[in-house]
C-alpha cells in the first residue's frame, strides 16, 4: 500500500517537473526557465537537496543511543563503547538514559513477553526521527530460544537494522550502526515506515 508522498519528496518531484516541463503535470519536454520560474526552481530543488542532505548528514553522525541493555548482548554493547572498539570515534558515545533525549534504540538482548510492552512504550516515548537496531539473534528472530517466553522485536516495533550474532562481536554491532548511518545519510525520509503505518506513534498521556 503506497501512501502518497508528502513533504520534501513532493517538492523534489515538483522541482524536477519544473525543470522538465512548464506546469507540474506537464509533458516531458525540456524547457528553459527564467524569471519567477527560475527562482521557484532554485527554491524547490537546490534548497531541498542541500539543506536536507546537510541535516541528514548531521543526524546520521550524531546518534544518541538509548542506554538499553537487556541481556548478554549488552555486554558486547559495553565492549563496543569500550576502549578497543571505540564507538566514540564515530560520535555515538553519548548514551542517554532518558528516551526523550535519545534517537537510537539498540535492543541488546532477548525481549520477553513481560518486557515487550515496556520496550514499546520506550520506543513511543522517543521523539521523531528515531531509529531502532535489533542487536543479536534473540530480538531479531527468536535466537537460540524458540519458546513461549520470547517475542521477536519485529512483532511490536519497526526495526531498521538487524544485527545477527549471538552475541554479535562489537565489530558486528559497529557494522550495523554504520549501515544505519549510511541509510540515514542517503534516504532520511523513513519511507518504509510510512508504508507500514509505523510513524506517528508517540505516547500521549490523556489529560496530561
Amino acid at each position, binding site marked *: 500500500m503506497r501512501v502518497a508522498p508528502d513533504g520534501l519528496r513532493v517538492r523534489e518531484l515538483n522541482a524536477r517537473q519544473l525543470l522538465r516541463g512548464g506546469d507540474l503535470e506537464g509533458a516531458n519536454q525540456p524547457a528553459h526557465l527564467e524569471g519567477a520560474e527560475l527562482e521557484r526552481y532554485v527554491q524547490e530543488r537546490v534548497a531541498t537537496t542541500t539543506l536536507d542532505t546537510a541535516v541528514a548528514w548531521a543526524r546520521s553522525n550524531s546518534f544518541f543511543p538509548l542506554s538499553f541493555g537487556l541481556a548478554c548482548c549488552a555486554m558486547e554493547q559495553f565492549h563496543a563503547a569500550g576502549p578497543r572498539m571505540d564507538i566514540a570515534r564515530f560520535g555515538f558515545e553519548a548514551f542517554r538514559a532518558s528516551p526523550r533525549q535519545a534517537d537510537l534504540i539498540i535492543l541488546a538482548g532477548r525481549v520477553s*513477553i513481560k518486557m515487550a510492552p515496556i520496550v514499546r512504550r520506550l520506543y513511543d516515548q522517543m521523539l521523531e526521527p528515531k531509529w531502532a537496531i535489533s542487536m543479536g539473534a534473540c530480538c531479531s528472530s*527468536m535466537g537460540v530460544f*524458540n*519458546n*513461549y517466553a520470547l517475542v521477536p522485536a519485529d512483532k511490536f516495533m519497526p526495526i531498521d537494522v538487524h544485527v545477527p550474532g549471538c552475541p554479535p562481536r562489537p565489530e558486528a554491532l559497529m557494522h550495523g550502526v554504520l549501515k544505519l548511518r549510511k541509510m540515514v545519510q542517503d534516504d532520511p525520509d523513513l519511507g518504509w515506515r510510512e508504508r507500514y503505518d509505523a510513524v506517528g506513534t508517540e505516547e500521549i498521556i490523556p489529560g496530561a
Partner: protein
Amino acid sequence: MPDATGLELIGQELGDSVLDTIFFRDRATLVIDPPSIRSVLARLREKGYSFMSSLHGVDYYPEEPRLGVIYELLDMRRVDRITVKLRVPTSAPEVQSVTPDASQDAGWPTANHQEREVYDMFGVVFRDHPDLRRILMPEDYEGHPQRRDFPLGGEPVIFTCNDTGTPRSSE
C-alpha cells in the same frame, strides 16, 4: 553426604513422615509425606542441616503424583548435603510453605522467592506463604509453563522451500 547407613538412620528417626530413602550416586534423598514437610525440615535443622541451598519443582508426568517439590539442605559444619523430596498430585497441589516464621521454628526465609517460582512454573500452591504470586511470568498469565504438558510455544520456523505462503518461496 550421609552415607547409605547414615541415611537409613535418619529415615528411621523421622519415622512415619519418610516414605522412601534413595541413595543414588553418593547423594542422599528422603521422600516424605507432604503434610509433614515443616516438621521434617525442623528436625533436620536440629541435626545440623541449617542452610537451604535450593527449592525447586519437578514435573513427573506421566507418573502420579505428578508435581514434586525438592528441598536441598546443606550442613556447613560437616559439609553434608541431603535432599528432601515430596510429591503432590495435580488435583490437589497444596503444600505447606516453609517460608514464614512460626512460633515453634524459625522458618526458612530463603524459600520466599523460590516457592513463588515453583508456584509460577508448576502451579503448586503454598499455604501460608506471605506473598504468593507469579514471579517470572506476567501476573495475569494463564497456565504453568514448566509442566510437561504445557506446549513449548515459539514462532514457527519458515523454511522457504517448504512454505508456499511466503513471497520468496521458490515456486
